[in-house]
């Protein structure tokens, strides 16, 4: 599948981080919607179900894990890649248990993110990425 047809949703309360990330993805031909909190993320998902959601675990208000559970409950097809802080491996592992596709730690390696997104999109339903 071509990268420019991917439907990606980026969710992080760190505006500077997530908008810059979106911009960098755009430069690589990946269009991505950006929201900054859990509620907006749920709304964006119900408006247009993404293929992949890149979700920050630590957010004010609704936590990343809660968003993940709600999204997976309604749209099990959505692949969710969690972003965790360093040393928060446990959060990532917990996310995997709740159906996340993979977890990556911040600061991100963009190439790794792109690779993971690509794997998520091309992976058969129900599989996770170690």
């Amino acid at each position: 599948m071509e990268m420019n047809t991917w439907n990606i949703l980026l969710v992080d309360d760190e505006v500077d981080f997530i908008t810059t990330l979106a911009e960098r993805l755009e430069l690589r031909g990946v269009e991505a919607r950006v929201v900054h909190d859990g509620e907006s993320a749920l709304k964006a998902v119900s408006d247009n179900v993404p293929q992949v959601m890149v979700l920050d675990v630590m957010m004010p208000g609704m936590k990343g894990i809660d968003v993940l559970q709600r999204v997976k409950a309604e749209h099990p097809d959505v692949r969710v890649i969690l972003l965790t802080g360093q040393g928060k491996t446990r959060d990532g592992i917990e996310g995997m248990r709740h159906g996340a596709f993979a977890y990556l730690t911040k600061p991100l390696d963009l190439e790794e993110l792109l690779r993971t997104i690509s794997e998520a999109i091309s992976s058969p339903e129900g599989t996770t990425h170690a």
Partner: protein
Amino acid sequence: MKKILSGPMDAIKADLATEITSPDRYKLLRRKIVSLMALVTLLPLLSLAAINYYEHQSSMSAEIQAPLRALVGKAKHSFELFLAERTSAVSFIASAYSFDELSDDANLQRIFQVMRREFTGFVDLGLIDTAGNQLSYAGPYDLKDRNYTSQDWFHQVQFKGTYISDVFLGFRKFPHVVIAVRHTTESGQSWILRATLDTMHFDRIISAMGLEPGSDAFLVNRNGVLQTESRRYGTVLDMLPFSLPPTNFESNVQGIRDPDQRDIYIASAFIADSDFALVAIKPKPTVFSTWYTVRLDLLVIFVLGVSFIFIAVYRLTSVLINRLQESDEQRLGAIHQMEHSQKLSSIGRLAAGVAHEINNPLAIINEKAGLMRDIMNLRPDFPDKEKFARQIEAILRSVDRCRGITHRMLGFAKRMDVKIEVLDVNAVLEETLGFLEREAQYRNVELKRELSQNLPNIATDHGQIQQVFLNILNNALAAVPDGGRIVLSTWNVDDHYIAISIEDNGCGMSDETAKNMFEPFFTTKKEKGTGLGMSITYGIVKRLGGEIKVKSKLNEGTTMTILLPKHPVEG
């Protein structure tokens, strides 16, 4: 006793309560305990010795006094008998013969001869009328017609009937005693019969007392004038140089000090019907010569006993103090270790917080710099494009470095769950060496293995023990120069531990560095190190129930030795 002991006891309690780390504290404590224990043990001993001395002295003095008293009593009796016999003889002659018979010189001479035969000691005999004239006389001197009215004894005998004089020289110029008896007939006629006694017999009675050398015995009158010769205090009619202690007719012993400052026992008793007192003297040193001999033996035993107690007390105290010192050191060590763990734990929490907070801005820097690079790569060349590219690369490298640091800080903070498995430590070492072999080869560093082939497998955490080896090997590799050498050894210590040592011939450490090397954030690698490696290593080894020791000499090398338990430690 309580009061005597309360002083030192309080001082010792105060010392124990005060935390003084100087070695003087133990010296002071040792001195105080030795003094106190010596006091406690010696006090009863000294009291016993004092009581023994007192009791012995009392019994010895009683033992000495009784024979002396008996001796004086016996001699006094002899004197009384002697005088009573002589007085009775004179009295009998005065009453058995008539005045006319006695006034005849030839008759008196005959009576005197008979009297001398029966009773020793008589010197002469004379008849004196109430006017004091000597009417007849039998004896060696020419005393006939002598008048005695002016003499005191004449008036005394007129008044008392019987009289025994003090010793005096008189007309005869040698010591003698007069016995005078007044006789009155039924018709009222009175006369006095007067006999003189030689005092030589007194000396005989005294010498019959069998006095020991140094002892003395003599007669003295109520005025303190010697009536017989004394061995020590003068001759007949001299004044006794000290006053007689209170004396009565019963023999009585007292201890006094004589004018020559000698301690003496003096026994005295008055002799009935006379003015004489018999006195016997025994010097105390003679009395206690046996005691002194015994006392010397006792003294030797006492001194030996005291020395033994002192040595025992000193040795015992030394053992106690050493134990105390050891336990104090252990306590201090435990406190330091606890402080160290607490410090590690607080620093860990702090590090986790810091790493976390830094990660978000770091992620932003990373993305921004990444975006800058992306944009720049898409643009055609522009002035200084390469320079900008270099700056961006520097920013991204710094982000990577920061990521590395926060990663290690989080690693330090992470509560490592121990996962115990039975493993071969030699194999773990080999595996770890595999990570470093390339660098060692490149730098021509020799990695020498002296691994025990009989090393038993131990139950420990694979990942953590590997981190320990890696940290130490990394340090060793950093310390050795190119072409240096690192020796790895393993061996079986005892039933409970195995040991692993990593020895390098690198730059070594100063004492100061060796002391601080396990402190968090202590580093000698400047910007290259976080100062957490050895601190983490220490924490892991401790958590696994092991010990880590460092031996290092500046410019010679360092040996790190790790002891690991063969079986996992509880807690």
